[in-house]
């Protein structure tokens, strides 16, 4: 190993440990949406000046460990840990009523680990296959983005309404960018991303202040959560082994769906998790086996889609051409002034240019191993205690307070009060579209790229 690799490796190890610990904890908190949480924190790591190896390791370790520990609230409390945990909810609840929540948890997280082991190498292989076409894809990017935006919008909950809402949303961004250009002779990126990612929170805060909105948000008394009983696995708690927790069939199905979903990097992770679960479920006759296998496969898919959708566009193209890359992973592609993506010239200066494929492979493996070593044994042995502690001690007010402060600080950092105004504007409109029309953050991120890539290309015609 060459000497100049030692420092990046140490960065990768350090940042992966940090992300592993942090996101194993965050995953325990139900409803911590990936885009809203991972994107701002990844952005932060980039802006502070962590070198590329640390950034990629931080990001991968974050999503891998979060998608292990998000199974804890999903299986023990019956509330989804985050957006990708939603497809597992039904199986989790049925296994919980059967009195075996610990089996649901064990299967889900073991499926996740197996899936990581398959998705990391396969994503790199698929990226290499795609690399020769990168220039062609880059040249066609403005048109690919608008096609992708329409497709992602149409497959969102809002269907045609979300497609139509792209027009006002894109115009809003174009207008804001023009005004910012006039005032500051620069463009903002971060404040737009933050607005999109935290839109539902910003919308809810406005709504809570309005007397009309407050009426709809009222809650009669405290919300009740029913924690599943702490079932001790027979034979005590040994040091867990993900492969032994799965049957041969489960191992095969999880590996198969991880391999397939590593290639389908342009589709939404939630949609793929639902689809893979359905396909596998339809092939298993025994009901009990179907329940446990579907939850295994679905959680596995949340890992493989996230890894592939980050690594493939990052290694092969350098443009955020996947729902993931345009969502939680957005800062890895574009986080000025550190990483930039020049819309007009079609040039990039982001992780794609700063790391070689070999380095991507090395740091991804480091991140995956560390994230699994932190999250898997912790969840296996402490799930019940941790879930109880989070529910009893971590108040939602504290989480919102932290995020509100984070939004203010990052905006002031990017462009003072104007940037804060941009985030609030985009957040309020985006949150409204999200809540009322069903146009989720992924569609809005695509809308952002349509505004900065496609609109100039159309005007140049």
């Amino acid at each position, binding site marked *: 190993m060459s000497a100049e690799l030692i420092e990046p490796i140490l960065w990768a190890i350090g940042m992966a440990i940090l992300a592993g610990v942090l996101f194993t904890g965050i995953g325990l908190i139900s409803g911590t949406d990936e885009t809203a949480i991972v994107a701002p924190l990844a952005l932060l790591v980039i802006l502070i000046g962590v070198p590329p190896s640390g950034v990629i390791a931080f990001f991968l370790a974050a999503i891998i460990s979060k998608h292990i520990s998000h199974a804890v609230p999903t299986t023990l409390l019956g509330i989804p840990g985050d957006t990708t945990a939603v497809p597992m909810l039904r199986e989790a609840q*049925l296994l919980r009523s059967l009195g075996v929540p610990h089996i649901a948890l064990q299967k889900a997280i073991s499926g996740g680990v197996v899936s990581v082991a398959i998705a990391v190498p396969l994503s790199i292989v698929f990226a290499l296959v795609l690399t020769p076409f990168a220039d062609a894809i880059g040249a066609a990017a403005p048109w690919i983005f608008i096609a992708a935006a329409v497709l992602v919008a149409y497959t969102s909950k809002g269907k045609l309404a979300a497609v139509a809402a792209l027009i006002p949303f894109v115009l809003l961004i174009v207008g804001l960018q023009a005004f910012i250009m006039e005032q500051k002779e620069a463009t903002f990126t971060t404040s737009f991303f933050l607005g999109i990612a935290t839109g539902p929170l910003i919308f809810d805060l406005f709504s809570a202040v309005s007397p009309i909105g407050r009426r709809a948000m009222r809650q009669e008394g405290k919300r009740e959560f029913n924690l599943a009983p702490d079932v001790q696995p027979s034979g005590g708690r040994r040091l867990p082994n993900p492969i032994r927790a799965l049957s041969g069939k489960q191992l095969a199905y999880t590996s198969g769906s991880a391999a397939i979903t590593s290639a389908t990097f342009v589709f939404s992770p939630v949609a793929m998790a639902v689809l893979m679960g359905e396909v596998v479920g339809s092939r298993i006759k*025994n009901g009990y086996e179907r329940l446990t296998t579907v939850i295994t496969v679905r959680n596995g898919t949340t890992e493989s889609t996230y890894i592939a959708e980050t690594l493939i566009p990052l290694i092969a193209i350098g443009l955020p051409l996947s729902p993931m890359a345009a969502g939680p992973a957005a800062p890895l592609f574009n986080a000025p002034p550190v990483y930039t993506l020049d819309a007009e010239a079609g040039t990039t200066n982001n992780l794609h240019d700063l790391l070689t494929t070999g380095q991507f492979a090395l740091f991804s493996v480091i991140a995956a191993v560390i994230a699994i070593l932190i999250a898997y044994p912790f969840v296996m042995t402490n799930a019940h205690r941790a879930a109880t502690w989070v529910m009893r001690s971590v108040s*939602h007010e504290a989480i919102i307070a932290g995020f*509100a402060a*984070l939004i203010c*600080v990052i905006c002031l950092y990017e462009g003072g009060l104007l940037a804060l105004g941009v985030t609030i504007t985009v957040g309020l409109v985006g949150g409204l579209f999200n809540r009322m029309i069903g146009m989720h953050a992924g569609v809005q991120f695509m809308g952002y790229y349509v505004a900065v890539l496609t609109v100039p290309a159309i005007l140049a015609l």
Partner: protein
Amino acid sequence: MPQLLEVWNDTVDPKHLIGGIAIGVGIAVPAYLIADQFFASRGDEALGHSYALLIGIVGCIIGAVITGVLFKPKRVITTSGSDTRNRQEIIDEIVEEYGDLGDPRELRPAAQDEVRALGLFDALVENHEARSQEKGGQQ
């Protein structure tokens, strides 16, 4: 009892929420601005800008922790003991929603062991047989 609201998918007390945001923003923003001024006055503006951001983030964390200590969660946690109903009733309910859970005897030995270790083997066999008899009776 204070009026509770659902904000960002969980329950909060609006007064506590306003207090929490005031604490978070009130600590983090001044921390960032003062740090930024301080580093700028010492030259090296670009790097100082990043250090100021880092200090702002530490402010966010401190603000969130203080909020967490001051305001407790608005959740009621009940730990259900094991369901006291008859096991067959519970399985029936699941079957109603999901379809037959099947005969565990047709599983591979390893999977059978898993079901046995969970104490579900006999219950599932019983339920499956009762169901196939019912079906047989109907035909």
